[in-house]
């Protein structure tokens, strides 16, 4: 029989040690996105409750520019971005890592023009709305190349994607370089698609970008996010109709339109993704970086390896 004094002491010691060893939980993972079909699988995963919503917070913003801006300011831990934006980020922030490829544009990035413009050549002297991003500039360069025009032949109006419809409607611009679903909607409004990403020499890739610090401190959440994404990707393959029904309203389009949209995007599956990561991504990065250097969007050369996650890290 233990003496009562001793018993109380033992209890105290146990209690004290329990409270002292209170483990630190991870901060919620803040992921910034814009409405874009390629990123919607994240929301599908959320809709299918693959995530702990307290731990993974998807922040819905209107434009890429805002997403990048918020990421730079540290308001986000992880962002969806076009590859070129990722590279621009990497230019100023050395701890950027690409951890997922969402999609490869297969015609989803488009040049939309006023119906009065019937050929690429007719762009001469016109105002073209372009987002001042890699994709925008890249698309524009390719459009001009195809139109055999010089950049001085057109006037460039800097825009963000959410302004496109407004600008065209008010005849502030004559053409925009846009992407689906905005581009698709423009198409429905009667604007003409004269050029799309299928005509590009190097693919337009959308990726998920994060920082080294997040990889270290929010590893569990990131893992959960990726697992959820892959489950959602499978779901899209296995239950395409339900998946489309769930996704379409967020993009404010019909399921049919969404289906069409997905035809213009390649959403690599897990094995394919692995392959791209291992074999192709480095090359893609380098070619995009070169193109951006040429266009003056990047000032210095990037080490493509630094953007890729160490293979030892299991993601």
């Amino acid at each position, binding site marked *: 029989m233990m003496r009562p*004094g001793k018993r109380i002491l033992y209890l105290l010691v146990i209690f004290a040690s329990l*409270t002292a060893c209170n483990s630190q939980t991870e901060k919620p993972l803040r992921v910034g996105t814009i409405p874009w079909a390629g990123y919607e699988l994240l929301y599908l995963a959320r809709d299918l409750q693959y995530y702990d919503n307290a731990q993974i917070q998807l922040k*819905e913003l209107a434009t890429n520019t805002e997403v990048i801006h918020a990421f730079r300011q540290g*308001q986000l831990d992880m962002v969806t971005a076009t590859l070129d934006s990722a590279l621009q980020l990497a230019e100023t922030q050395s701890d950027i890592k690409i951890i997922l490829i969402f999609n490869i544009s297969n015609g989803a990035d488009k040049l939309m023009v006023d119906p009065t413009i019937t050929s690429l050549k007719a762009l001469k002297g016109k105002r073209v709305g372009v987002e001042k991003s890699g994709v925008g500039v890249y698309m524009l360069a390719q459009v001009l190349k195809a139109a055999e025009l010089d950049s001085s032949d057109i006037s460039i109006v800097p825009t963000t994607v*959410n302004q496109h419809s*407004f600008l065209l409607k008010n005849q502030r611009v004559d053409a925009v370089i846009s992407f689906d679903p905005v581009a698709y909607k423009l198409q429905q409004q009667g604007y003409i698609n004269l050029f799309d990403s299928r005509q590009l020499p190097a693919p337009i890739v959308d990726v998920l970008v994060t920082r080294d610090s997040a990889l270290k401190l929010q590893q569990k959440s990131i893992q959960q996010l990726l697992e959820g994404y892959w489950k959602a990707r499978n779901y899209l393959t296995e239950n395409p109709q339900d998946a489309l029904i769930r996704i379409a309203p967020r993009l404010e389009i019909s399921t049919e339109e969404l289906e069409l949209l997905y035809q213009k995007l390649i959403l690599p599956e897990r094995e394919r993704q692995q392959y791209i990561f291992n074999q192709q991504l480095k090359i893609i990065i380098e070619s995009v970086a070169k193109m951006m250097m040429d266009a003056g969007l990047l000032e210095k050369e990037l080490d493509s390896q630094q953007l890729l996650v160490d293979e030892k890290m299991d993601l």
Partner: protein
Amino acid sequence: MYPIQTYRLTLWLPVAVTLLFLFILVFYSVNEYRHRLLDIKEVSRIQLQETALQLGHSLEYALANNDSLHARSSVARFSLRADAQLAILIDADNVIESSSYFIWQDQPAEKVLDAELLHYVKLARSQKRYIESSNENEDLLTFFLPLLEADQQKVLVLQNSIKKKLETAKTEILNAIAPLLLLITIANILLIFLIRKLVIRPLNALQHLTEQIQNQQFELINPLKGDTEQAQVGQTLVDAARQLQSHISILTENEQRLRITLESIGDAVIVTDAAGNITRMNRVASELTAWPEEDAIGLPLLNVFDIYQADTGEKLTNPVDLVIQNGEVVELSNHTVLKARNGVSYHISDSAAPIRLDHDRGTEILGVILVFTNVSNQYRLRQELRQSVDFLKNLLTISPCVTYILDIKQDTTTEFRLSYVSESVIHYSGHPAEYWLGQPEVWQQSVHPADINKVKQTLLTVLQSDKPVSNQFRFRHRDGHYITVEDHLSVVKNDHTHKLQIVGVVLDISEQKHTAEQNALFGEILEQSLNEIYVFDAETFQFIHVNHGALINLGYSLEEMQTLTPLDIKTDYNFSTLKALIAPLCSGETPRLIFETNHRRKDGSQYAVHVDLQTAIYGEREVFIAIIEDISEQKQVEKILSQERSLLRSIIDSSPDLIFCKDDQGKYIRCNKAVMEFLATTEADIIGKTDFDFYPEKEARNYRHSDQLTLQHNTSQFYEEAVYGAEGQKVLFETLKTPLKNATGKTIGVLGISRDISRQYEADKELRLASLVFENSNEGIIITNENNLIITVNPAFTIMTGYALDDVAGKNPSILSSGEHDQYFYEQMWAQLEQQGFWSGEVQNRRKNGKTYPQWLSISRVENAQQQLQNYVAIMSDISKYREAEQKINFLAHHDVLTSLPNRALLKDRVGQALISAERHRQKLALLYLDLDRFKFINDSLGHAIGDQLLIKVAERLSQQMREEDTVCRTGGDEFIILLPDTDADGAGHVAQKLVENITTPFEIDGNQLFVTVSIGISIYPDNGEDAESLNKHADTAMYRAKQAGRNQYQFFTAEMHSQIVHKLELEHALRFALARNELSLVYQPLVDIKLNKITGAEALIRWNHPELGSISPLEFIPIAEETGMINPIGQWILHTAIAQCKQWVDAGHRDLLIAINLSAVQFNNPLLVTMINTILHEHQLPADNLELEITESVAMINIDLTIKQLKSLADAGIRLSLDDFGTGYSSLNYLKKFPINKLKIDQSFVFDMLTDEDDEAIVDAVITLARSLGLKTLAEGVETLEHLRVLNNKGCDFMQGYLFSKPVPAEPFFNLLNHPPVGNLGVD
């Protein structure tokens, strides 16, 4: 005392400390946690509110600009904030317009929001105010902000979740207390160890020691060492054991001794314990109680010691109980009977004493020792003795005499010491026996000094005589009077003491002696009295005795008298009437009878007498005693007196004054009729009463006081007294009070005469008051006579005007006139005065020092009783201060106190005015909202005083930069509003830019260099609103945007306006550096002589290529350059560059090449233009006829005289001139004729449309025809096609320029062009 409960130290000490610490810890943690939660909630709430207001502003701006995309992305961006949960914008139809969840957009709000939130949305919308709410757990804060922009009734809903923060706070608190818990645990273990070491082991050793002592082992060793309490306790135990051992041996020895002692003493001794049970008794006690010791021990005392009260036989209280109760020795009691066990009784004397542990009284009683002796024999003897003494004592007590015994000392026979005196001495002397016995010699002092020798002599006599002797002497009573006593003395020889004693018996005979003396005295007095005294028999009426006075008065001898009866001398009565008169006396009804009658002398004369008759017993018989007074003279005097009194009375009564007499106690003695009327009562009711019966107490006391004063001073005095009459009327009296003296001159009271002076007093009072008012009035008063000449003025007048009475007396008040009022004014004033008797109004008057001041003047006509003009009275008050105050109040009402800038109220007024004016004249106006950016920081860190000074400086600086017509207003805090009337967005932008730049110059305040910046919001009428309210709101919104956009800048309300102005200002700014940075360049467009098919000239055109803004059209920047004056340096630069270039080409062989340069209006109007151009031509060595200057038609028409003059001097210098854009303006051909120009340029708009528009073609034709008629050449601009060329050629145009030949090109390509014909095949001949 209860024993103290003890607890185990090893357990409870650590447990108690731990629990205490834990309690404190838990309390602290819970408290800290709650505070932190509250803080978090409050901070989150404020953050959310601020965020909401910011976002609201941003949204209103976006909505005002119809920029719904911006609004959407603003709403979406909310989700980036920490804790953000939800942001939605709901429109008037409850449809979600924007949301941080995109999927909700365009959904009805009912679908996503619960009923409570919807309710708040509606509430916020209907009440037009923001609402905050939180859920039950208080971890979700929701904010509802109605957006009022353009009445769209949109509501912004923001939701923050602070759940995470709250959880973090909890974890942090737990983490914070964990180390404390650990510390407490370690501290406890340490504590237990220490307790074991320090307390438990020594305690065990001490316990062992006590067990040894218990086992009667007294030879011990202290197991503890060191100078500690424990070691001391151990040592004490060891010492105690040793002492115990020695005490035990001493005790055993004492016990033996005690036993022997007890057995050997003669008294009986019983010892009991504290409970009263017998513990021991000796042999004598055994014998007396007949209880053997062995039987008695252990029994209660009373079983053995059976005692009773000897006299009453009552059972006595147990002496042991008494001892134990009182804790004291119970002394011998001699009236006790002890009943032994065998029935024998003894008188005993007993005493009982407590046995204590110590002799100290405080200690506990252990038992009682009872000692008693058989006193039966002594008791009987004493009983007998007491009986005889008592008998004697009683005898002496009841005797009225005082018995005393004086001891005589054998050697000195003169000393007599009192050795006994009976108790009754107190009646004679007032002192008790004890007093006398206490001081045996003192009795002699109480003997009357005159008698003392007699007394002593008597004492000596007694000693020598065998017989008793008596003596009378006086003896002083305690209260001072003497009594006369008779003393009977005899000598007694005391056999026992062989002492001589004198025994005396004293009797008080004072009474007898006194009576005897008195009787003798009275007899003599009565006999000698002048009053007649008769004693006569009640039966026979026969005189028994009459005194000497009566005999003389009546003229009878005593013997004669004794034969007479009262009837013989009383003429008025016969026997029966006298009998009837005295009947009441005889029956005992009254003790005496007084009446008046007449007596007859022996000679027959009669006189009036006053009779006092009484009965008395004289010897054995009843007699009457009559005392008679002769009152005949008195009667006569009374009669005269009564007559005089009646006369006096009627005089007094006829006086209207109140006349009264009071005695020295204030009681009315007399009063006259006036008094009676005043008090409305009769004299009888007044007399004997005091003022207190008629007047209120306060007044009565005053009257009494004045009465007493009069009596004290003993002279006549006047008093003014307010008196309330019987009917309540207040009357003011002047009362003369005189001491009232009786015949002997003694003051017996007060005589008062009161006169009513009320009316006189009232008049006096009014006069005094008027004078007081006049002297002390704050208003100046002038009194003039009927001729309006000043009689007097008051001091206030002197203070106000500076004129003393001497300065103005006898003068007309018009000397005060300032001359500011005209004749008419005064006529009106006098007319009213004469008609209505009164005038008042504001006038400007002049002070003595010449200054004028406003005053309020009232003038009254004063008429006498006959209604004739007597005086004018003017009352004036200086209202200059009032006017100043009025102005000040007016200023304060419209200005900010701190900075003296206009306040919001004044601004509102000005904005209203400006709006009316702007509307009428179709002008614009600008409203600027300024907010200092770092002001709060400065205020908080340097204090309000510095902050206030800064605001003042800022206000000054702002005001300095404004035009006169602008209004700078401070609306509170660090906010300023500036109204710029007749100012458009451009002007406002300039002002704002200037302010932003200017305010950054540091402020120097109290040695602090303060840097502040401003954020400015601008709204423009009518673009941003047509009323003050919306202009204000929009300027505020714009200011908010300026803050949001990073402060230190200005913003227009709409983005469009903002970007336009900013762009313009940007250009303006950039243009200043354009020259220096080589951003300007010239391009040249060929001028083709179509006849020669040759380029004969070049028009120099300016181009501006900005590195960031790109190429900027001259159409855009030339007006700015003209506005800012930059056109002059730019113009010069063009002239230099173009002329230098032309010179190169001329030198290269194109001798006739013409360089055409455009002149702007500013340049053209410069009087130094010709000189300047000549200088430049000279500098570059270019002949003047290689230069052609172009001015536009509109420039030429601004000032035709100047144009002609300027053109002439240019032409004189040999410079060619052309009129540009001809046909676009309206030119008077009249003037055109006078212009010494060479060429007309046909505007490209006509050329362009010439082929399709007949009107334009007609103009082209007209221009060419006109030129020809004036002898001028023509040049067509904008020739783009061969068709143009052909048509123009046909019409006879001389020169052409346009894309057909070349667009404007830089110098180098132009030079290349020069060497080729401009048109390969003109298609014309």
